[in-house]
């Protein structure tokens, strides 16, 4: 051990020497590798993110390029996933579709988690009348079946990427807030929170330095599971004609509308977009599962 660094005299430095320091991310990846499904899911997500970022390079064709001479072509070398009734390359449209799914997913889920966790922390920590009013407001939103509320919102506001994001934020935030509130209620009872108060820490400091680190594992799991759920919601709205309007290629929309007439002739049109949604949502769920096991302090080592 001493070969790795000079022997020091303070306890802190000795601890460093005893345990060779690795970046947190590498430590985490090593642990993730013990969860094969979680690890594979992580790789799939990385791959999809890569495709979305570099769609221009990865996609073999322009997703909107119509080709009257090659309509409804079955999967072949030139078009690995076939073409649609307008002769557009299905693979390219799916790759570009990843862009809109991930964009909406990350923006909406990120907002859900940050907003929901903040609301939940405030309601759980302060409690009392303020907490009750906040949570009853969340109850009101959660009293309506989620997908129906989202449909009403986008149906009224009009189908657009912006309105889909807005609907998902409104629909998804209360559940994050509710879960966070529950955990904060129990975390606040810990002795170290009383300790913080005793040495005069401000509420802000207690919330962000004492409580937040202890609920972060739940929040991260909620982000991963939420990503999957929200991508599903986005595709459902798209499927109902309430997503990002054409010509933007979205996975849900590829399975809906007038294109459905051609499914019996060209079944590949019905398969790939659904498979893409399933794969991505599946990966986020599995990653969420793995995160839950890895990050929950009680589950460590089991």
């Amino acid at each position: 051990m001493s070969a790795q660094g000079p022997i020091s005299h303070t306890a802190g430095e000795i601890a460093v020497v005893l345990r060779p320091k690795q970046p947190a991310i590498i430590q985490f990846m090593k642990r993730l590798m013990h969860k094969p499904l979680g690890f594979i899911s992580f790789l799939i997500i990385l791959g999809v993110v890569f495709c979305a970022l570099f769609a221009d390079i990865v996609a073999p064709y322009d997703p909107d390029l119509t080709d009257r001479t090659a309509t409804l072509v079955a999967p072949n070398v030139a078009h690995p996933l076939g073409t649609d009734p307008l002769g557009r390359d299905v693979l390219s449209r799916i790759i570009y579709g990843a862009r809109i799914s991930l964009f909406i997913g990350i923006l909406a889920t990120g907002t859900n988690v940050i907003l929901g966790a903040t609301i939940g922390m405030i309601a759980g920590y302060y409690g009392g009348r303020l907490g009750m009013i906040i949570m009853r407001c969340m109850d009101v939103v959660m009293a309506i079946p989620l997908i129906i509320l989202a449909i009403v919102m986008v149906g009224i506001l009009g189908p657009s990427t912006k309105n889909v994001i807005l609907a998902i934020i409104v629909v998804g935030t209360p559940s994050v807030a509710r879960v966070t509130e529950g955990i904060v209620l129990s975390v606040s009872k810990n002795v170290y929170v009383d300790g913080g108060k005793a040495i005069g820490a401000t509420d802000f400091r207690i919330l962000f330095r004492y409580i937040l680190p202890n609920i972060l594992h739940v929040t991260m799991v909620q982000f991963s599971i939420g990503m999957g759920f929200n991508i599903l919601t986005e595709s459902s709205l798209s499927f109902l004609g309430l997503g990002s309007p054409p010509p933007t290629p979205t996975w849900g929309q590829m399975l809906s509308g007038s294109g459905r007439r051609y499914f019996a002739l060209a079944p590949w049109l019905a398969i790939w977009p659904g498979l893409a949604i399933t794969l991505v949502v599946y990966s986020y769920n599995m990653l969420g599962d793995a995160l839950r096991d890895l990050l929950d302090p009680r589950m460590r080592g089991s």
Partner: protein
Amino acid sequence: MTRFIVRRLLMLIPVLLGVSLLIFTLMRVVPTDVAAMMLGENVSTETLASLRKDLGLDKPIPLQYFEWISNVVRGDLGRSIWLPDKTVTERLLQRLPVTFELALIATSVGIISGISFGVLAAVRQDTWVDNVARAVGIIGLAAPSFWIATIVILFPAIFWGWSIPAAYVDLTENPGNHLMKIVPAALVLGFSLTATVMRYSRTTLLEVLRQDYVRTARAKGLTERVVIYRHALKNALIPVVTISGQAFARQLGGTVIIETVFNIPGVGLLMIGAITARDYNMVQGGILILALFLAFSNLVVDVLYAVLDPRIRYS
């Protein structure tokens, strides 16, 4: 217990009022002239004005809300703007049975298969059985229901030339055709529930199996079978009740999509049409009723929870 139920019912009132306010506001966020939508372009302003007056849309919006909600609390959800010969309540009552039938079949199938797979996965934790069950189960969570529905409709038609009847018929009219349409739709709807229940029962069973009383049971020399089915499972399934209640509520929402794909005239299809047509009373009434059902199913679940688990007592 009675006090708990009464208190919960009372708490429903502010929540439902909140829902009514939320949905009423939402419907009017984007100013739309429904009268103009109904009459088309070539009409005089007088005709438009008189229709608006008939529909009560000329009044200030807060007053509109007040009039609507005071009728609602008296049990009158109003009339559809487009089809004024029937009340909203009548139209909902006509559509609700189909939606319930769908949700009920889906929920029962989902719970039964979910618990079975969950137990199997937990008993064989970390073996290939566990991994396969978890992986397959999660497909149910990940695959969008409209996609599975599309496949279920499409592939029998391609391979066997058999397709689900296009038109919907009532159970009383032609039970065979009715079920041929409803059952596939319900199975697709229930598939996601299978995954949820499976994951949940697997986790809770694993947690219970770690407890002391299970160790005691094993130490007594009971067979693994008895330990799992007689001792552990009962306790493990209590939380599954909660998740099943929530899932049933979610099925009510999921039916919107399934009804659209399978073309089944339930509440979901009714709502989608009403939203597009800005049929204010219809949408508002429908959402309120759905919210009411959701709240009741949550209440039933909480009560069941206390009945099943002697450790839980509401006061």
